[in-house]
């Protein structure tokens, strides 16, 4: 809207227009926001700088006192890709992360649609049950899952220990609850008139879901997809128990292996790995950002 573009100094973003007036007034109205912004930026960039610094530090130590260490090089990256199985780990992480994100997005959307649109026996209990299950920490699960998968590995090794599919299944189950709740809340904001109108127009349940509702909930799909990807890529606990073969490890487990044995020695390589791992997440975020905008439903009904 044109009106907000020309309004100065109310939002505190970069497009602020400086108006004439007393010099002190500018700082009081606008300047301090920049100061706060810079502080927040420094605070959040510090750890990243630290990791970057460690990644280019040839000594493989975290206790360097310089931002740019002496003899800075990409030696750690070379070691990472040549001396370790990192490429495999990275691929594992990406496959599991993307699949977990996509599948959990779809499964949760289906569940959320049902919970939001239909009234059936057990709906309330189901919703509460999902919420309740989420409240237990993952630690509690590990033992039970371990025993279950010990049997599964014997009977059906394709989804047992050291397989991507097995881990994927676990992640899907884990993400279902939160995502369903998140999405249900969003689905509830889409007027039910739209479904009914489409039904009268002749749409089937599937056509309503895919053709009408899904396009309208893209922001929440993007959010859950992103969260699903990040959590699957970063997940360590379950992965470390289930993946023991070097080839089956995800990047998180593999990188941990680098630093768990000899303290401090491999931190350069570890930091390099962490940086590489951050690239796809940032890229995905950049890609999905455009979908994470609200207001898509505006104009559906009188407002």
């Amino acid at each position, binding site marked *: 809207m044109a009106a907000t573009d020309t309004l100065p100094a109310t939002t505190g973003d970069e497009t602020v227009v400086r108006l004439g007036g007393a010099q002190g007034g500018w700082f009081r109205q606008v300047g301090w926001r920049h100061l706060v912004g810079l502080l927040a930026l420094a605070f959040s960039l510090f750890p990243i700088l630290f990791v970057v610094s460690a990644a280019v530090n040839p000594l493989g130590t975290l206790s360097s006192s310089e931002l740019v260490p002496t003899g800075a090089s990409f030696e750690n990256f070379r070691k990472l890709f040549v001396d370790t199985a990192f490429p495999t780990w990275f691929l594992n992480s990406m496959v599991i992360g993307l699949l977990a994100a996509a599948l959990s997005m779809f499964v949760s959307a289906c569940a959320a649609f049902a919970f939001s649109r239909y009234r059936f026996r057990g709906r309330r209990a189901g919703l509460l049950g999902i919420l309740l299950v989420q409240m237990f920490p993952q630690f509690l699960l590990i033992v039970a899952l371990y025993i279950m998968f010990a049997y599964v590995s014997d009977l059906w090794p394709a989804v047992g220990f050291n397989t991507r599919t097995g881990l994927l299944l676990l992640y899907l189950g884990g993400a279902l609850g939160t995502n369903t709740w998140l999405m249900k809340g969003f689905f509830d904001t889409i007027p039910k008139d739209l479904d009914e109108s489409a039904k*009268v*127009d002749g749409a089937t349940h599937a056509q309503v879901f895919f053709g009408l509702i899904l396009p309208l909930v893209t922001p929440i799909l993007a959010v859950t997809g992103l969260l699903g990807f990040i959590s699957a890529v970063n997940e360590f606990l379950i992965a470390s128990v289930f993946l023991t073969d070097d080839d089956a490890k995800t990047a998180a487990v593999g990188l941990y292996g680098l630093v768990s044995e000899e303290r401090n020695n491999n931190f350069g390589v570890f930091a390099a790995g962490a940086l590489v791992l951050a690239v796809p997440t940032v890229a995905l975020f950049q890609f999905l950002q455009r979908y994470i905008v609200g207001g898509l439903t505006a104009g*559906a009904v*009188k407002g």
Partner: protein
Amino acid sequence: MAEVILDRVNKQYENGFHAVKDLDLDIADGEFLVLVGPSGCGKSTALRMVAGLEDITSGTLKIGDRVVNTLSPRDRDIAMVFQSYALYPHMTVADNISYGLKIRRMEKAEIDRRVKKAAEMLELGALLDRRPKQLSGGQRQRVAMGRAIVREPQVFLMDEPLSNLDAKLRVQMRAEIAQVQHDLNVTTIYVTHDQTEAMTMGDRVALMKAGVLQQVGNPQFLYDNPDNIFVAGFIGSPPMNMALAQVERDGDDLVVVLGRSRLPLPAAARSERPGLDAYAGRQVAVGIRSEDMEDARLVRGADERSRLRATVSLIEALGSQIMVHFLLDAPRVVTEDTKLLDKDAHAEEAPKHDATKFVASFAPRSRVRAGDEVEVVVDTERMHFFDPTTGDAIR
């Protein structure tokens, strides 16, 4: 096109709420039927049952020759216009209008032809590439209409389609919808809570209260012959004036004692309502339409006795007529119906129980002013009588 027949249709929700009770309606092919009533009277539920958006608890619903009780909305060959318009926000106007046709896999050429025709009819041609967000309320309403029209369905269902528009636009769209319906000659069920819409648009009006059909008929018939106090109070603006009166015998004649006045009942009115004799010596609710009253000074040779005397409390000059408000010294009619009507009109409780607000419509030649003592001639032949306990018309 088809007739729609509801035969003892009921809707009872799982929580026990009985929304629609034994609804019988025969809607003829091509007819424009308006379902009207205060909010919560079950009119929308009835419409949604016809649409297939609500299950029918019991009874039979026929569209054309088919019993459609268990058919899904898509198989009923109906089109519906929602109060909120329910336009698909991510689609253009053209896509919105053609959505129902595309989903039915109609040929592209035929879709284009129909969309074009509907757009012409509703003057949407220039807007076809816009999104709903970029349209005004009236335009959105037209798109919703267009979406229904292109389907060329057997029945149009409209659920308060005009209540989100401002007053002026509402009047305009009211005429347009009536025109479109007339041109297409499609059976239409139109739900509204606005009695003006009901009166002006419907071939017939069906008035509901608390899930029960009160009366159905052509609008003028309902206006002239209300079956009960509720119908009398709901149909017409301003609503029918009603007060408690005493029916007394005066020799062979009947006299209606209304406040201080004793209004003689003409023989014609009495022969039309033979039931009134039985109320001699008892209380009745008398209803008088505002246009059946006139300034006594303007009526030559008016009966001296057929007059009410009161003090004018408020004047509303409308140009073509003057609405004269006065307080009549007769007790108010208070039944469940009048309470419901008051609630629906958001009216406040009248201050005194033994006086009733009346509104008369005088010719603009009348020079009455607020505070004047006025004599009001009543057209006694056109008075309405109701049993004050049951609320039914006395005939």
